[in-house]
């Protein structure tokens, strides 16, 4: 059963006279209870995609130009602000990247959890308070620390509080925007483990935004690789990790250092991501691609390699045609 369907989403930011094409016609489906990893470099449009789903693209300068975002078949882009407020925090919750700045420093953590509960559930103050304590316990923080302020918590604990806020109303879709990037590695593992456990317990679907392929391998069932505002390849975890087809995906995997091979330098993808205010014609990756040919100056086709595996590249089309 499809929970969320993004169809041909286009989001642009106008900065002065430039138009930054942050998201260029992406399509994505999230099934109920599934976890999909959205992978890409900084500036690939991952966060903008997430904010579009939340209806929180900062406007101005950002604007959703076209496309549909369907939750249970209802287009979120057509909903009023008031209707979206009922969905945010209740049906779709989001965990932000930086736990240090995502909590209000002058409110106790308990109040911040309670706030979302009171917004979406008609229960008394005492009950909301009790539930907030339970949420704290659920993420491994003693309930008696309810009345403490964010500055009294460590980074990892703050991120757990944020997770508690996100899960407080038992959302059906959780968007986690680089939830572990700001944490050190040992805490990362704890937080990821906890997220996976809670997700399984509550059957929450999740979009995990990250640039860490290791995290994706650990948590996700499906993967979508984003580059310059487009999804260049998507498929199941096996599709992407065992048989990546897009040159960019292959480059990403090659750039992970291999412990068994001694090498002086890391394998990198040469060049930089194109300026999103001046994208090249045709394939966005073609300037950095070793396999680029003349035809790459045209818009590459989306090739279905299997029921689950799709890639946007001429190369795949040629190979498929040749088979």
């Amino acid at each position: 059963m499809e929970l969320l369907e993004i169809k041909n989403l286009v989001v642009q930011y106008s900065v002065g006279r430039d138009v930054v094409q942050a998201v260029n016609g992406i399509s994505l489906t999230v099934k109920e209870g599934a976890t999909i990893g959205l992978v890409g470099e900084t500036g690939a449009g991952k966060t903008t995609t997430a904010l579009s789903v939340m209806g929180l693209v900062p406007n101005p300068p950002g604007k959703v130009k076209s496309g549909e975002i369907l939750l249970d078949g209802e287009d979120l882009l057509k909903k009023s602000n008031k209707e979206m407020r009922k969905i945010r925090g209740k049906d779709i919750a989001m965990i932000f990247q930086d736990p240090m700045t995502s909590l209000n420093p002058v409110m106790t953590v308990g109040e911040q959890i309670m706030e979302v509960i009171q917004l979406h559930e008609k229960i008394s103050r005492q009950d909301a308070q009790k539930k907030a304590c339970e949420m704290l316990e659920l993420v491994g923080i003693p309930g008696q620390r309810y009345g403490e302020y964010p500055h009294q918590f460590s980074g990892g604990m703050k991120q757990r509080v944020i997770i508690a806020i996100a899960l407080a109303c038992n959302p059906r879709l959780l968007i986690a925007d680089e939830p572990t990037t700001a944490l050190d590695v040992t805490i990362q593992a704890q937080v990821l483990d906890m997220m996976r456990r809670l997700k399984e317990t509550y059957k929450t679907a999740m979009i995990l935004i990250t640039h860490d392929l290791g995290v994706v391998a650990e948590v996700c069932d499906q993967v979508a690789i984003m580059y310059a505002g487009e999804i260049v390849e998507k498929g199941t975890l096996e599709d992407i990790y065992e048989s990546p087809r897009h040159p960019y995906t292959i480059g990403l995997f090659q750039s992970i250092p291999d412990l068994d091979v001694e090498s002086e330098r890391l394998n990198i993808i040469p060049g930089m991501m194109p300026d999103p205010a001046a994208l090249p014609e045709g394939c966005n990756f073609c300037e950095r691609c070793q396999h680029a040919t003349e035809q790459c100056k045209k818009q590459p086709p989306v090739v279905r390699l299997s029921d689950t595996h799709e890639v946007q590249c001429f190369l795949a089309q040629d190979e498929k045609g040749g088979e």
Partner: protein
Amino acid sequence: MLHGGNPVQHKLYMEIEEGKQVLRYIAKRILMMLPILFGITVIVFTLMYITPGDPAYAILGENATPEQVMEIHKEYGLDDPYLIRLGRYFAGVLQGDFGTSYKTGRPVFTEIMDRYPNTLKLALLSTLLGVVIGVAAGIIAAVKQYSIFDRVGTIISLFGVSAPSFWVAMVLVLLFSVKLKILPATGTYGPQYWILPVFTLGLQASTSIMRMTRSSMLEVIRQDYIRTSRAKGQSEWKTIMHHAFKNAQVPIVTIIGIRICGFLAGAVLVETVFAIPGLGKYIIDSVNFKDYPVVQGGVLWIGLNCIVINLLVDIVYCFIDPRIKSMYSNKKKAAAVGTGGASNG
């Protein structure tokens, strides 16, 4: 732990503990007031001492005979060396005696207290008006940045900061007293007499408060926790008021404190235009008359007021921002709480 698992009890316990620390901090601050007041007294006394001119002539008039002048000098101890006079003044102040006015012969403290209520009333009412207008306008300007309201508000506030208060006062008198004849121009005989002076100073205060509110709000509105609040499904109004405004208050409270201090000492021009018998005007008159004890006493009194206001501002910070509160508390204690927290996690 001594306190049970009940979060409300725990919170109460934490607050009592922290409250004790903050009280200790306040006591320390009150002790620190003494050297400051000492400094103010020495500086003002010295300034008056080195000012040329003889108060005896001010008391007796230009045509005083040398004998009369000598008599006055003897009576007031004006011929004694600097340190002896300073010591005598301190001895008096410590006993609550600020000396007597050369001009009226009444105790300085009584003279000050006759005028202080007027000054305090004017300062507090004007600041209150300034806060109401300034904070509201500042929030709207920040939320609707670059809108017509923001642009017009910024221009008006620039005008308000630059326009001299005596000029604004006279324009208001011309308009409401002379032309429209709906408000009295001078005196302090009833509530209606306060409207124009309070408006003059209040508008002036509102401009600086608005600018501070606007810039502070703009900074806060861009913070991640504002986005968190929206992601919870919170309404825009509550996001602005509960999350943004509370975080923006520290600089606003600071400027409000500065404003009150400024109005206590510096409302001279407005007091003059509206003929309000206030402290500022009294001190200026006394400087001209060389009524040294009044100048010293008046400045010392205003200094004390400003120190108390600054202390109040610092205490208000505690209620706004818990981080400042824990900074005030014992550092060792804060560290212990920190490690306790980490071991829990």
